[in-house]
């Protein structure tokens, strides 16, 4: 049974800053727009994440995307603490380069490859919520269409057939690229991702990686608020589940 922490609506977030992260302060600003949330930037050379309820791996170009996206960040000192946090049920959210790092680290299955069309795609597009049984999508409903921007050159999700089968069997695909009406089609796939996959969660459902940038659509002044549902889901999930640490 989840442990109930009475009277607490607070959520303490660590946003990991790698050399080359560039969406860290955007994530922080988006999170701080929610009441009761504290969000701190944590340098990648730190070794502890004790006391945090959520860990965010933000977008950017960690280590200049050298070798492969996320392949060097995955060995940063903080990653042992991220791994430990994930294993104890702390929510871990990887956005764009953060998703790539989570895959390189083996915290999520599969990998993100070069976009099928070789172009860096930077545009707002549509995502269909495939499953709301997760801490990251609980206030959304299945089939809901969100408008959220992408900005990546290596976002083509790939996993072998066996892994893909397991992802689907366990409802780990949380968001797919779709058109404005919610149809998941080849035309709506910006990068050649397998089965239009835009984001997946771990088997334990507390680690979520996605290529689109929800933090960029959390304020009307930025053109939309469709990203807020993902953060609101985490906030709503928190009081009933967070451990006393």
């Amino acid at each position, binding site marked *: 049974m989840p442990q109930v922490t009475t009277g607490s609506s607070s959520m303490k977030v660590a946003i990991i800053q790698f050399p080359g992260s560039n969406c860290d302060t955007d994530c922080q600003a988006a999170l701080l727009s929610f009441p009761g949330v504290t969000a701190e930037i944590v340098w990648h050379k730190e070794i502890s994440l004790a006391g945090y309820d959520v860990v965010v791996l933000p977008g950017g170009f960690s280590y200049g995307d050298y*070798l*492969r996206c996320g*392949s*060097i960040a995955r*060995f940063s000192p903080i990653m042992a603490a991220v791994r430990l946090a994930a294993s104890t049920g702390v929510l871990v959210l990887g956005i764009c380069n953060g998703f790539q790092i989570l*895959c*390189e680290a083996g915290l999520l299955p*599969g*990998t993100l*490859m*070069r*976009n*099928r*069309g*070789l172009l860096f795609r930077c545009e707002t597009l549509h995502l269909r919520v495939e499953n709301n049984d997760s801490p990251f999508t609980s206030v959304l409903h299945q089939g809901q269409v969100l408008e959220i921007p992408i900005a990546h050159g290596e976002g083509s999700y*790939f*996993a*072998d057939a066996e892994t893909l089968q397991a992802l689907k069997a366990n409802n780990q695909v949380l968001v797919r690229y779709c058109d404005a009406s919610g149809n998941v089609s080849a035309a709506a796939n910006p990068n*050649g991702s397998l089965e239009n996959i835009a984001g997946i969660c771990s088997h334990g459902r507390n680690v979520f990686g996605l290529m689109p940038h929800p933090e960029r659509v959390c304020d009307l002044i930025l053109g939309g608020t469709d990203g807020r549902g993902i953060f609101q889901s985490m906030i709503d999930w928190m009081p009933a589940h967070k451990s006393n640490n």
Partner: protein
Amino acid sequence: MKAVVTVMPKPAILDPAGVATARAMEHLGLKGVHSVRIGKSIEIEIDGADPSSLTEQLHEICHDLLSNPVVEDYKLEILS
């Protein structure tokens, strides 16, 4: 010692950069281009090391860092 690691996309994986390069080769008049695959070659020099003592560690590094086993294969050659 000197080692060379060659990292290539697995045969079943589409290599979009290779496909685009193949098209460019055809555009330049090269006939019958069947396949172009683009990988990486990584040269490593290590001071004063006995190759045999490092082979296992180098394989680990190839597996964990230099290649992504989900989509890539590597070949490790120790040259001297």
